[in-house]
């Protein structure tokens, strides 16, 4: 593999550049995926049948916690990439671990939130609205969960192999994924929770 020293480590080989562009295209597909879920949600949001409406079941406290935690994790992974660019492998690993811990906390809050919905009679089967709500949130939550496992593999490889063009590339792509999930959450927070609560 030819390594171009003039570029950041994650871009330094041709395969690395291909991987990063490929992942951006994949994020394009993910935008369509979540876009479709949002479209479905907006169509079904008032079709509550005999079940509750959003305003009746949404609780601001856990949602605010989730939002702060996820936004913070986006910041910490940004610091991780900054450390990577500077070549501080150890700091980078710690920032990645912190990011993943925040991810786990986020998922815990989301599990609590889902249990709350089921408790108040808004399960997946209740109405078209609850199905669309839980599927949209669930898809995002599943992405975060997948990301936590993926991130664990990356941290493991960073510890084992150090910063190489491959591990830097993987870490960078993972950070793109993590930021993307954050962006999706901002839309969920604004258009599902805030819009649903007013």
């Amino acid at each position: 593999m030819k390594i171009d020293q003039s570029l950041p480590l994650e871009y330094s080989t041709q395969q690395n550049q291909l991987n990063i562009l490929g992942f951006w295209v994949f994020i394009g597909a993910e935008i369509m995926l979540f876009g479709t879920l949002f479209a479905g949600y907006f169509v079904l949001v008032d079709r509550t049948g005999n079940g509750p409406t959003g305003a009746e079941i949404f609780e601001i406290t856990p949602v605010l916690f989730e939002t702060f935690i996820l936004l913070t994790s986006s910041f910490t992974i940004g610091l991780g990439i900054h450390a990577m660019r500077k070549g501080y492998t150890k700091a980078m690993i710690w920032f990645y671990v912190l990011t993943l811990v925040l991810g786990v906390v986020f998922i815990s809050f989301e599990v609590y939130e889902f249990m709350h919905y089921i408790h108040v009679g808004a399960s997946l089967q209740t109405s078209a609205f609850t199905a669309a709500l839980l599927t949209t949130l669930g898809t995002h939550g599943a992405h975060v969960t997948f990301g936590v496992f993926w991130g664990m593999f990356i941290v493991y490889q960073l510890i084992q192999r150090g910063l190489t063009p491959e591990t830097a590339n993987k870490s960078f792509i993972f950070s793109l994924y993590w930021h993307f999930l954050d962006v999706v959450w901002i839309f969920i927070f604004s258009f599902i929770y805030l819009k649903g609560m007013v």
Partner: protein
Amino acid sequence: MEYFERFAIPHPSQAIYASMVAIGLTVIAIIVGLTYFKKWGYLWREWLTTVDHKRIGIMYLISALLMLFRGGADAIMMRAQMAVPDNTLLDAQHYNEIFTTHGTVMIIFMAMPFIMAFMNYIVPLQIGARDVAFPRLNALSFWLFFMGAMLLNISFVIGGSPDAGWTNYFPLANNEFSQSVGTNYYLFALQISGLGTLITGINMIVTILKMRAPGMTLMKMPMFTWSSLVANVIIVFAFPVLTVALTMGTFDRLFATNFFTTSDGGMDMLWANFFWVWGHPEVYILILPAFGIYSEIISTFSGRNLYGYKSMVGSMVIISFLSFLVWTHHFFTMGQGALTNSIFSITTMAIAVPTGVKIFNWLFTLWKGKIVFTTPMLYSMLFIPTFTIGGVTGVMLGMSAADYQYHNTMFLVAHFHMVIIPGVVFAMLAGLHYYWPKMFGFMLNEKIGKWTAWIIAISTLLAFMPMFVSGLDGQARRMYTYSASTGFGLWNMISFIGAIGLTIGFILLVYNVIYSIRYSPRNVGSDPWDARTLEWATPSPVPYYNFAKVPHVISTEALWDAKYHQHELFPEPYEKIHMPNNSGVPFLLGCIFFAWGFSFVFGMWIPTILTTIGIFICMAHRSLEKDPGHYVPVEKVKTTESKLRGSQL
């Protein structure tokens, strides 16, 4: 035994039992044959684990041809049932299952892999690359497609075929009205193969954007590569919509949610909208690469460069954009109101403009050209008038007010067959004849090829033109029989004769392949058609590294420049070549996905969980694996090249 009762077919018939026996015997024959000829190792090393885009392309091609015959068998059964009034060859349920699988197989498992075959094989060669951007993912794409296809194909012998139409409209497709597991098969087969298609889309976009030969700017790419790029962009934007729709449909059927139900707030039209937001762009995913193949062929056999290159590219980009803005025309009669219908009428008719530009560009390419009527060219010439019939009737259907008359009649069936068969199938057959020498090193017989082309073209007209008449007369689609007093009998009989003609044509195609394998002369050289683009600059069959030296390009027609304008195509010295390693994991992952889909279809949760874990283990393995690929040393490249070139020059 109770556990196994779920696998029984709900509507058995003699034909299905016969198929079971036939499938069983074929599987045994394949296993015995492989063992007897000691080919297991060869199959595993050369095909199942390959990441070579050319071999993957050939596997797509073989799958597409197999599925063509599966879908064709469905078609001939339908036409036989409809040939005479009050026929009892098939009952209503069986007829439903057959038109459903015919549509699904032909679109998803015949046309798509046919396109994928050419994209995989040709695009890297046309841009002077050694493989696609992600060879391992490419293998995974193929195996996901293949396993999805197999999943749909076993449905009719295990558990029952899908029977809600290839459009799978809810609420017809929900548990109440489609009680067998058939619709689950449909949902999971499309989900798995759709995942493969999405991966191909990403792979091809990156390949085309980042791996072109030096000098090949975007506007110097051959037209087929351009059409593939546009089609793959559509794939990336359209397929996630299908993913979500299929997931919601799956949830409705397996977890009793209310997305598409008619109670508790569910909205059945949401499925129709999602389906066609994917489904209409899907049509252009098929037709654009087909247009690309026609562009290559027409330009080659006119001895001229393609007329209006820029307008060709522009019209494809416009088509790709408009393809997302027309989906409502599939259900004008569902009560959107006049304003919505009018808007979608206008966008629909607007697509005829860029398509017309392309037709005229081909005609102008022919003008003053030195036309050579080879088989691929014959298909292309038969395509233009027949496709235009299909296209013009499409504009008729696009007028929303008039559509109330045509909707759900045989007129519509005639229309889309008259677009897809000349547009896509003729292109695939033309491409098959055109690229056959590149793939296998010998030509298909021209005489049999031309007979086949004429038989297929005339039979297409014979099979589908009568449907325009009977459709306007009120014959509804998807009705399994009709009474003699309707007067549809004559038209349907003519259609049946056309269908027999098509069967003969496709059998002749297979005969041509067998005949040419036996008798066709070898050593046709790397460029048997006097073609113009890079894929013909490397020996046939193509060495695994594609190009020994990286080609340099100065125009859209690199090879033509090299042959007739003293352009030096390969100015660089030999260098060692980096190639990816083979891997069995994509095949394994495909098999696990098959088991995963199968478990979901029957709601068997323990196997579902186990296979899901298996999928994640494969991904973890990929994450931890170190796979630097390998280098082919200069000496080996030189000896391979002198062997390949030496035998030809």
